[in-house]
């Protein structure tokens, strides 16, 4: 509880609140605007004539008889078959999270339990790899992937994303495992377990909070990636983000901006749900590296 000495003068309180309201508006207004506008026609979405058109949608009413229309969504999902891209995104994300957590927990656990010097150097190398922009690696993938004929398919993108994910996953899980007392698995080893059995029966049951947080960030990386997926997937295998980027080139000429708007809203919605349910994990994950480091 704040004591009276810590209470703020009214003007300061007001100033702070005003600042916060401005920031929160900046943070959410774009999302609100795009969501609202996605149910309009292009004339109302951009509202050149009068900004209130964006709110009430007279042009939409003229065309469809209602101020809201699902035409953008129908166009994107059915006509442009955006559902394929949604499906691809979820396939990619599912396998990226699954694989990178599986191999990442093993590696992160090993790093946290080994006291040798090479652990430090492996972590440093991981840090360097983590800093590399993924697009710089893409030029290196092209030739071999064409040569082996694996360019353009989902498994290739999944494997590449898993690898790009590993440095971050390792750092994160390494620090989570370090917080699990060493005595736990050591006592299991005293009782005759091998290292893997100790990991399997003692560590796995208690590691889930850390693994879930790490998994969230793996998911975000795979979901938000543009550089790798746009370069390594063929047109028919595109995930959502490169597909939206591809719309940009074509829709302006075809007058189907609303398809792109609907696709953008569709791609943002899952992230909203994710933040809503996992806000605490995301915050703790973001701060884990910072506060300790």
């Amino acid at each position: 509880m704040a004591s009276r000495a810590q209470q703020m003068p009214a003007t300061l309180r007001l100033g702070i609140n005003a600042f916060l309201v401005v920031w929160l508006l900046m943070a959410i207004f774009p999302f609100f605007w795009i969501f609202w506008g996605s149910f309009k026609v292009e004339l109302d979405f951009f509202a050149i004539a009068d900004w209130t058109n964006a709110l009430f949608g007279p042009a939409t009413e003229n065309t469809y008889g209602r101020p809201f229309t699902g035409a953008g969504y129908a166009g994107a999902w059915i006509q442009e078959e955006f559902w394929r891209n949604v499906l691809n995104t979820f396939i990619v994300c599912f396998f990226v999270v699954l694989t990178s957590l599986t191999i990442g927990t093993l590696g992160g656990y090993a790093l946290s339990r080994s006291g040798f010097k090479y652990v430090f150097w492996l972590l440093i190398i991981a840090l360097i790899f983590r800093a590399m922009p993924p697009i710089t690696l893409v030029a290196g993938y092209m030739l071999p992937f064409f040569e082996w004929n694996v360019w353009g398919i989902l498994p290739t993108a999944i494997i590449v994303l898993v690898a790009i994910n590993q440095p971050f996953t390792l750092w994160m899980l390494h620090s989570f495992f370090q917080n699990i007392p060493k005595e736990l698995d050591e006592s299991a080893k005293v009782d005759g377990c091998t290292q893997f059995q100790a990991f399997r029966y003692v560590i796995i049951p208690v590691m889930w909070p850390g693994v879930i947080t790490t998994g969230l960030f793996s998911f975000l990386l795979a979901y938000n990636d543009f550089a790798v997926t746009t370069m390594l997937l063929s047109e028919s295998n595109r995930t959502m983000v490169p597909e939206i980027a591809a719309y940009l080139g074509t829709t302006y000429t075809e007058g189907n901006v609303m398809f792109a708007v609907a696709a953008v809203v569709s791609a943002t919605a899952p992230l909203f749900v994710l933040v809503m349910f996992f806000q605490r994990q995301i915050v703790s994950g973001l701060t884990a590296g910072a506060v300790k480091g």
Partner: protein
Amino acid sequence: MKHKTFFWFFLPTGLAMFLFIALPIVSVVIQSVYAPHEAVIVEVENCGPFGCTTETTIDQEATRAIREAEPLGRFVGAEIYLDRGHLAVAEVAEAWAASATTGEFISVLMNLPFYRAMAFTLTYVFVCTPSLIILGLMIALAVNSLHRHLKGLAIFFSLLPMIVTPLVGALVLFWMIDSRGILGNLISYLANDPSLSLKASTPLMWISLIIYGVWSSAPFAFVVFYAGLQTLPQDQIEAAQIDGATRWEQVKYIVVPHLMPLITFVALIQLMDNFKVFEPIVSFQAQAHATSLSWIIFNDLGGETRQLSAAATTSVMTIIGVAILLSPVLYRTWTDFKGRGH
């Protein structure tokens, strides 16, 4: 843990990183010193009733044969690094000799892709990073003073710009400030200039990109600082209050020094991240006004002709840039590790 056990535990992740990060880096470096083979040109003499003419044609078969025999191309050393698309040494030297004034020299420089990209990238890095730290700190202080029921909601809203897909977030902002969009409309109404368009003006484009950069990264700074504020030394704050320190003095002399390690952390991370600026340039279709090294790679790799050598060279230069920005982080990790007495 024994070496052998460690090896088996680490093998899958180590292999993934070796094959798909370490090897591609090597491959990129190698590609950057090879250029594609030039077409083999043969001279054919055609002798007809009216005398002989010599024609030069491309020998398709020989060209294909040499391209298949050495798919990497021919070794050219540092040539690609120095060509017009990259460091443009010859052009810079020429411009330096020819230009009378510094302004003239700079305008020549700004027409070379590499220097154009660097000019924008460095401006972006050094304007965005301090701005987002200050904004993040202000949000953290403001949210921290809220009633606890409101804190969760404020954090939820504040996280959104960071969590959203960069390409998509930038696109939404771009539509808003498009001359037909809601903000673009408002700005041209306020400026009383209906022809005002973001797409046509370089300064406006740079400002919008920087605003996007601050908007999307300030939440990260906010979250980190907010976590730091939870461990604020209350006794010091109270002591300062008893000594009659104003709120501003408390922030300046207690809060900011307490958060200093976190501010350094955010600054180092954001310097690196902002150097990689890429998606907003694609979303804003800003290539006429602002480019970055990442965008140049993207541009070289995409399209009909995949210019692997040029892209690889730019990749190597980007990696060098990131390495320079990374070195303080590495140094910090190193001293930190030493300090913990391993």
